[in-house]
C-alpha cells in the first residue's frame, strides 16, 4: 500500500472561476482559483458545493483535470447531464468571477505519481478521460520518461475532449488511439464499434512490460476494458479502475 496517507480534515475553500472553455457541445472545462489549495496528485477528485440564495446547497464529486501545480489553480471538466441538478448550472450558467466551494483532494488509489517509472496504460471511456488527462499533464509537466499510452473510446469525433492537446501528444512520446463507437471520422479505417480484445492488444503495452493500467469511464465500459486487459495477461492487481454510473449514465449529478 505504498503512497497511502491518512488525510487531515478536509475544509471547504472558496473557489473563484477564472477561465471557461468548452470541450464539446455538452462539456466544459472550468479553471478555479482556490485560496489555500493544498495541492493534489494526478487522478484525485474534489467535492464541489454550490449554494443557492436561500441557503440550499448541493455537493457533487468531480475528478481534477489539471496537473498538480505549485500554485492554487485547478481545472475541472464537467459533462452536462440532461437531468442533472448541478452539472447544467456549472456548464451553462457559471461565469467568470462566480464562486463555488471545493474541498479535497479526495482519493489516493487511482493516482499517478511522478516517481512511478514503469509504463502506464490509460484507458478512457467518454468523460472518464478527465483523471487520465491529469496524469498525462503531470507526466509532461514533471518531464517524466515513463512510457505512456492512451486508448480513448468516444461516441464520435465531436465528442473528443482536450482535442488539440491530445493531438500533440505524439510529439511528446505519448501514443494515443481513438476508438469511435457510433461515428468515425472519414480517415478512420476501423468501422465504428465498441472496443474489442484485438484492438486493446494493439493499442496497449504488452503484459510482459508490466504496465500499471488505469481504466476510467462508465461502469459497463470499465467492466469490459478491465476484463480484456486481464484476458490479455495483465495482472488484476496492476489494473486500477474508476467507474461512474450504473450503465454509463451518472444520473442525478
Amino acid at each position, binding site marked *: *500500500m505504498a503512497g*497511502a*496517507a*491518512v*488525510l*487531515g*480534515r*478536509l475544509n*471547504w475553500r*472558496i473557489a473563484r472561476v477564472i477561465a471557461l472553455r468548452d470541450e464539446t457541445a455538452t462539456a466544459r472545462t472550468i479553471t478555479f482559483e482556490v485560496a489555500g489549495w493544498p495541492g493534489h496528485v494526478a487522478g484525485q477528485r474534489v467535492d464541489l*458545493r*454550490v*449554494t*443557492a*440564495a436561500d*441557503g*440550499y*446547497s*448541493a*455537493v*457533487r*464529486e468531480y475528478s481534477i483535470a489539471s496537473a498538480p501545480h505549485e500554485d492554487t489553480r485547478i481545472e475541472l471538466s464537467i459533462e452536462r447531464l440532461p437531468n442533472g*441538478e*448541478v452539472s447544467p*448550472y456549472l456548464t451553462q*450558467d*457559471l*461565469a467568470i468571477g*462566480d*464562486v*463555488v*466551494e471545493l474541498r479535497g483532494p*479526495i*482519493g*489516493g*488509489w*487511482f493516482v499517478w505519481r511522478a516517481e512511478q517509472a514503469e509504463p502506464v496504460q490509460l484507458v478512457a471511456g467518454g468523460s472518464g478521460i478527465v483523471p487520465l488527462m491529469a496524469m498525462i499533464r503531470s507526466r509532461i509537466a514533471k518531464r517524466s520518461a515513463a512510457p505512456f499510452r492512451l486508448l480513448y473510446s468516444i461516441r464520435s469525433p465531436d465528442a473528443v475532449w482536450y482535442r488539440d492537446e491530445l493531438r500533440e501528444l505524439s510529439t511528446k512520446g505519448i501514443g494515443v488511439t481513438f476508438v469511435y463507437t457510433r461515428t468515425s471520422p472519414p480517415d478512420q479505417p476501423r468501422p465504428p464499434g465498441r472496443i474489442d480484445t484485438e484492438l486493446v492488444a494493439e493499442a496497449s503495452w504488452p503484459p510482459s512490460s508490466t504496465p500499471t493500467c488505469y481504466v476510467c469511464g462508465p*461502469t459497463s465500459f470499465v*467492466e469490459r476494458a*478491465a*476484463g480484456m*486487459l*486481464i484476458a490479455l495477461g495483465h495482472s*488484476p*492487481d496492476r*489494473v*486500477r*479502475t474508476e*467507474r*461512474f*454510473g*450504473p*450503465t454509463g*449514465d*451518472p*444520473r*442525478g449529478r
Partner: protein
Amino acid sequence: MAESRGFVGRNRAANAKLPPGQYLTTDFPVLSAGPTPHVPPDEWELTIDDGTTVLRRWDWNAFRELPSETITVDIHCVTRWSKLGTAWEGVSLDTLLTGITGNASFALARSYGGYTTNLPLRDLQNKQAWIAFRYDGAELPPEHGGPARLLVPHLYLWKSAKWIRGITLRNHDEPGFWERYGYHNYGDPWREQRYSGD
C-alpha cells in the same frame, strides 16, 4: 457557505430517509477500485480467523446450508447516492460469529481481489450485518459483489465489502483499503462521516 450566483437547485424536498448530503437513485451504481473478480462457487470459501488461527471455514455448499433471511434496507454510498428499500437475502453475522468472538473488539473484512475494510465488531452483531448472496430476487451479480458480499447497511456502503472471503477478528483496530486513503474510519452516513476528520 458561499452563495453561488444563479444556482437554484431543485431537490429541496426533505426526505427523512435520506442522510445529509445524499440524493436518491433508483439505479444501482457500481464503485470498485479494481477489476471485478469472478469467483466460481466451487472455489469460493469464507473463513473467520483471529489473525493466526482459522476459527471457522465454510465452502459454498456449507455456507448456503446455514439459515438465511431476507433483508430490506436502505443503502448509502459515500459518493452521495442512496437507494431505498433494497431487498437482499443473506446469512446473519450473528449466525457466523456464534461462540467465536472471544476478546475481539474489531473486525477486518477481507475480499477476493485484495480489498479490505475495518469495522468495530459490535457493528457486525445484533442483527446489523449479513453476508448477502441474493439481491432483488436473483443471484448477486459479480459487479455488485457476487457470489457473496458483506452487507452493513447502517454504514456507508464501502464498509459492505464486495466479494468477501474472510473476516479477521482483532483486539486492535487497523484501517482497511479506503480508510488508509483518507476515508472515515467509521463511516456513519447520518453523521456524514465521509472523510477522515468529518
